[in-house]
């Protein structure tokens, strides 16, 4: 009979570190956090039973330092390390270093990480396991005959792509065979002039693709399951910002097929612990393996809300040697969950990260509202790390209820002191095309390329508010205020934090 870890070190920061610490505490496991000097007073640092400094702010000198983290774990007497996501989460060397130091890495083996990190190798393995990949040429095409054969095999439309490519250069969509030769020649010319290399290849063109991923889980006793899908098509700068589960595009039959394929991937990779198998889904219901993420994902909470499980607690149990717990053997979906990522960034200015101090922080609450956050009132959002502040997850009996709760919760979510994406996210979730489920991967380009926050509409209200705030912070103005304000020896902004100006402790 295995035993649960006694003490776990969390090798991460921000909301995911807090999430893992909470899971440990719920299971009665002692916790250790590590922090860079920038995070000396961060939420994750102080939530743990013990905390160790591991260096200056740049990740390479702290959160990416395998030695320092292993040292902290040994000093604290931890049994295991949870890597969160990002940083060392998909680093095979770190997973190996844990093993070499008699620490359990809470995640898959170094071999699994390595295999899935190598896109060429992993795709080969998946082809052999019968998992569908985007059809096309494996290598560059030489003769037009090769292209024609490959196109016939993949089925039109097809895409010609430059091997050295990027940014749409040397790329052509071909809808019919008779357009193929012209397209290949054109793509080659363009590739040559753009990259100095005219190598091009062909793959199937996916019309209106959706990003569908399956949560998977496997224990060290040979059990592997999937925990249904998440749709993560809404992306900006190739980063997901709105995720939901279930996907509106996945029928029960398709779910069964894709889920089985996801479990095939897990088995083919000898995978243990939580992972995510990413697929592209086209409008005809065909799906293609993209890659597998060998970690807990940012968007794992929507799966938790819909399936009624705790994925992080299960990571800890499975890594301790337990078989999958009974909840994972009789899984079902209930209702609908949506997650939005609250970044410190300027949605109106190309999503430029925003840094600063959170001067006002007010989270929404109530039925169906969950917040996983890594900041609070007076937190500093600095320059060194990913600017995610929090995730807001809303659950509802159905998709429309989840959407309505999300829009309401976002309207109650207040962060002042830096720029953030709350208004942008609210506009996405409230958008009619989101409502009708037209959530393809180009949703943002298609519907939000000319988005603006409508700052001018309420300029007068904003100015009036600024003027009142300004007036009340200046005591001489308060004195000349109206009866209502003047009759109180009271200055609202100075009393927040409960200290009344004018009162002196003797």
């Amino acid at each position, binding site marked *: 009979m295995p035993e649960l870890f006694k003490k776990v070190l969390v090798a991460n920061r921000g909301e995911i570190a807090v999430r893992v610490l909470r899971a440990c505490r719920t299971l009665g496991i002692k916790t250790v956090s590590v922090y860079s000097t920038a995070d000396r007073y961060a939420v994750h640092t102080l939530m743990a039973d013990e905390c160790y400094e591991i260096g200056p702010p740049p990740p390479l000198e702290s959160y990416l330092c395998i030695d320092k983290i292993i040292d902290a774990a040994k000093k604290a007497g931890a049994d295991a390390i949870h890597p969160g996501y990002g940083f060392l989460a998909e680093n095979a060397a770190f997973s190996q270093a844990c093993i070499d130091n008699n620490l359990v890495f809470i995640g898959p083996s170094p071999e699994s990480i390595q295999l899935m990190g190598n896109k060429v190798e992993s795709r080969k393995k998946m082809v052999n396991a019968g998992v569908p990949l985007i059809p096309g040429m494996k290598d560059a095409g030489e003769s037009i005959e090769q292209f024609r054969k490959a196109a016939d095999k993949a089925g039109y439309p097809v895409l010609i792509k430059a091997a050295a490519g990027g940014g749409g250069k040397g790329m052509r969509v071909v809808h019919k065979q008779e357009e193929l030769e012209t397209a290949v020649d054109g793509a080659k010319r363009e590739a040559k002039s753009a990259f100095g290399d005219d190598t091009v290849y062909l793959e199937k063109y996916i019309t209106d693709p959706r990003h569908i991923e399956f949560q998977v889980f496997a224990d060290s006793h040979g059990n592997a399951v999937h925990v249904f899908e998440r749709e993560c098509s809404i992306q900006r700068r190739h980063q997901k910002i709105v995720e939901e589960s279930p996907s509106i595009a996945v029928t029960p039959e398709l779910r069964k097929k894709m889920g089985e394929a996801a479990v095939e991937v897990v088995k083919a990779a000898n995978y243990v612990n939580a992972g995510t198998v990413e697929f592209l889904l086209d409008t005809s219901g065909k799906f293609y393996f993209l890659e597998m993420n060998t970690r807990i994902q940012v968007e794992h909470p929507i799966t938790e809300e819909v399936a009624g499980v705790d994925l992080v607690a299960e990571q800890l149990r499975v890594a301790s040697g337990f078989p999958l717990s009974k909840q994972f053997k009789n899984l079902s979906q209930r209702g609908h969950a949506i997650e939005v990522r609250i970044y410190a960034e300027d949605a109106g200015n190309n999503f*430029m990260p925003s840094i600063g101090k959170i*001067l006002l922080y007010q989270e929404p609450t109530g039925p169906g509202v969950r917040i996983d956050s890594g900041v609070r009132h007076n937190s500093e959002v600095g320059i060194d790390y990913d600017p995610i502040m929090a995730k807001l997850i809303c659950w509802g009996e159905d998709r429309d209820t989840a959407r309505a709760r999300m829009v309401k919760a976002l309207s109650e979510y207040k962060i002042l002191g830096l720029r953030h994406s709350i208004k942008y996210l609210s506009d996405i979730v409230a958008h009619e095309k989101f409502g009708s489920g037209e959530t393809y991967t180009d949703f943002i380009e298609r519907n939000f390329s000319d988005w603006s926050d409508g700052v001018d509409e309420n300029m007068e209200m904003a100015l009036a508010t600024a003027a009142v705030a300004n007036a009340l912070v200046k005591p001489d103005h308060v004195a000349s205020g109206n009866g209502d304000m003047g009759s109180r020896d009271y200055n609202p902004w100075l009393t927040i934090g409960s200290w009344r100006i004018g009162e002196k402790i003797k």
Partner: protein
Amino acid sequence: MIYEFVHNGELKTVDLKDNRIATFPDVNKAVEIDCSPDGRFYLHNGDARSEVHAVVSGDTIFVDINSVLYEFTIPSQDGGKGTSGGGDMADPSKVYAPMPGKVVKVIAVEGDEVEAKAQLIIVEAMKMEHICIAKAKGKVTAVNFKEGDQVDTETPLIELELAE
């Protein structure tokens, strides 16, 4: 009482009476804002009172109206900066970094004649590149940093002599 604030480099004026009724010189509109004993702000509109949010920090006032964010700066007496971040954004002859970071590429060369929107210098901050562009046509008179330099938001990266 007349208050002046700078928003996105533009000067805005508001006339506040009794610390609660705001009127505007160029718009025919009155806005009533109420401050509660617990230090919150409310917008009056008939039988509706809706909460608006504001925080004063130094010479900056952050405001949230229906999730739309506003950052107002109180103009200083010495005629100084337009906004709180990114140097003096109102002066097109100076180009500042939008946030502290590292110069990854210098495109402009001293003496270059550049058009408005020309790319001048690229700064990396928070793992993302930001391209600093010319706000107006002019001639580059100073390039103050080279690749690899750490920069803040207070020192101009590039200085221009504006055309005309």
